[in-house]
């Protein structure tokens, strides 16, 4: 099993070989973000900016204004939080071709504890004008997303993790920015998930299946622009929705789905995610249980929205 950060590192290497306009900026931490892999092969296109995320994002803007495709790499919490206003003013206001790779996102960071666990990055990046937000579910998808980011116009945020992610997707699966991938069809309830939660959602569908409930599972790798068609179809065809994210439910992925549901086709909906609380240290598996992010939690939420549907 490989982490999505590994897929990101591989994607950067492929991009480096294929395109001369790709440069990588690193706010230290290059070994952790895998940016160091690019540095080893393309030292002249790698720029160490040190522990200075605001400067890194501004420098990336300068590269983009000079026709380059810069990937700025740090932990998600620092890249999106500390440099939020630089991303707003120096990047998004000018719709620049800056790509941000944020690793160590979510509770699955584990032992490093709350200050290093990005819980709000989807919310923060989703509110940025012109920003595309992608949350890959495994290393294969992360590699594809990284390569796709380079040819997606404007700013892109890639939300990545350090915890080895169970393989969910195959090499042959399509990856189109903004287009959700149906993993399993069903007609009783739809489970929308991103990142590591896609695997949990598949396991939840298995649990539900053993109870005679047929759950649709959708991998929403792109949180912005959200795939409205997939959401509306799920509302019409299954009549109940559960979202699952390894992130705060305040303004995050579940909120993005709920906005469409409420506007287009209101049906019972439940959000699985981090409930407006900070993180803590622990083993990722323990933390998933403690923060109610497991397949069991998703299955329980699914049964509850199905109940509401019948009333």
């Amino acid at each position, binding site marked *: 099993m490989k982490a999505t950060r590994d897929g990101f590192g591989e994607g950067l290497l492929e991009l480096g070989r294929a395109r001369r306009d790709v440069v990588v900026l690193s706010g230290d931490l290059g070994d952790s973000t895998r940016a160091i892999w690019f540095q080893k092969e393309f030292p002249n296109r790698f720029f160490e900016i040190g522990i*200075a995320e605001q*400067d890194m*994002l501004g420098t990336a*803007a300068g*590269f983009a204004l000079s026709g380059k495709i810069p990937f700025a790499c740090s932990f998600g919490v620092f890249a999106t939080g500390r440099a939020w206003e630089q991303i707003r003013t*120096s990047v998004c*206001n*000018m719709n620049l071709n800056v790509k941000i790779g944020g690793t160590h996102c979510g509770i699955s960071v584990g032992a490093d504890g709350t200050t290093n666990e990005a819980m709000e990055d989807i919310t923060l990046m989703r509110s940025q004008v012109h920003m595309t937000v992608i949350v890959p579910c495994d290393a294969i998808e992360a590699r594809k997303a990284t390569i796709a980011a380079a040819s997606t116009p404007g700013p892109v945020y890639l939300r990545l993790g350090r915890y080895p992610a169970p393989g969910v997707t195959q090499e042959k699966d399509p990856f189109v920015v903004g287009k959700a991938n149906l993993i399993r069809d069903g007609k009783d309830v739809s489970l929308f998930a991103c990142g590591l939660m896609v695997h949990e959602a598949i396991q939840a569908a298995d649990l539900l299946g053993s109870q005679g409930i047929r759950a649709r599972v959708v991998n929403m790798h792109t949180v912005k622009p959200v795939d409205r068609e997939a959401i509306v179809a799920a509302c019409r065809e299954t009549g109940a929705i559960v979202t699952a994210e390894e992130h705060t439910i305040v303004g995050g992925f579940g909120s993005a789905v709920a906005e469409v549901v409420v506007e287009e086709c209101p049906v019972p909906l439940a959000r699985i995610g981090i409930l407006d609380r900070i993180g803590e240290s622990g083993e990722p598996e323990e933390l998933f249980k403690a923060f109610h992010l497991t397949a069991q939690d998703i299955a329980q939420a699914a049964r509850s929205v199905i109940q509401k549907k019948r009333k």
Partner: protein
Amino acid sequence: MTRELEEKITALKKKAKEVRKDDLTMLAKAGSGHPGGSLSLVEILVTLFYGEILKHDPKNPEWADRDRLVLSKGHGCPALYVLLAHRGYFPRSLLWTLRQLGSPLQGHPHRGLAGIETSSGSLGQGLSIANGMALAARLDQKSHRIYCVTGDGEIQEGQIWEAAMTAGHYKLDHLCAIVDANGIQQNGPVAQIKNLEPLPEKWRSFGWHTIEVNGHKFSELLSAFQEALSVKEKPTVVIARTVKGKGVSFMEGRSEWHGKAPNAEQLEQALKEIEAGDIG
């Protein structure tokens, strides 16, 4: 001083007067904006645009080999707008639409207007962008230069010092920062709000070649930019000691004129003083 230089400075002084007058006229028409920090900038920008310093082509604003000018202190944009109009980037008549709905001349610069390299106005961000431009130019083996104008209050922002460290680390000798050190920020003297001195020593310790000049003296500005051209292995900063509101007696050194437009009467007096004045 050679006769040639004397003539050049006479022409620059004349241009500076025109720029100051248009600057205040557009602000008065807009009814809001920043006179103080745009008037302190005039000689700096006139030197860059009319002193044969900036390599640029108003007919081809996106020319790949042009020198870049990043106005990090975005609130100084009225002066830059006037210079861009006078150099032919857009018609002078556009100046009178400043701050109006639909005008490309926003209250702070926004990329999209010919000659504006970057959006700015959130202070402290321009030098990082200039670094990125300079690193990209080096990667592409281009010879153009990058200029970045900051304020002095602005450099209370920590990002400026992150960027100063980066430029020093990468020895960006094709980068020249200019600090418009007018000594006044919105709520009072910089020295009282949060002191920055000794400014030259701070930049020097970050690995910069430092030149301190009277920022209203064309001879000093011209020679500083010439000197910067010959500096190798270090970025250069020109610390331009200026006067906020320069050229208008009731605005000079007064923080209340940081962000307030003159009324019709004040404009009339200001234009008279500028015409009668002798700056440069």
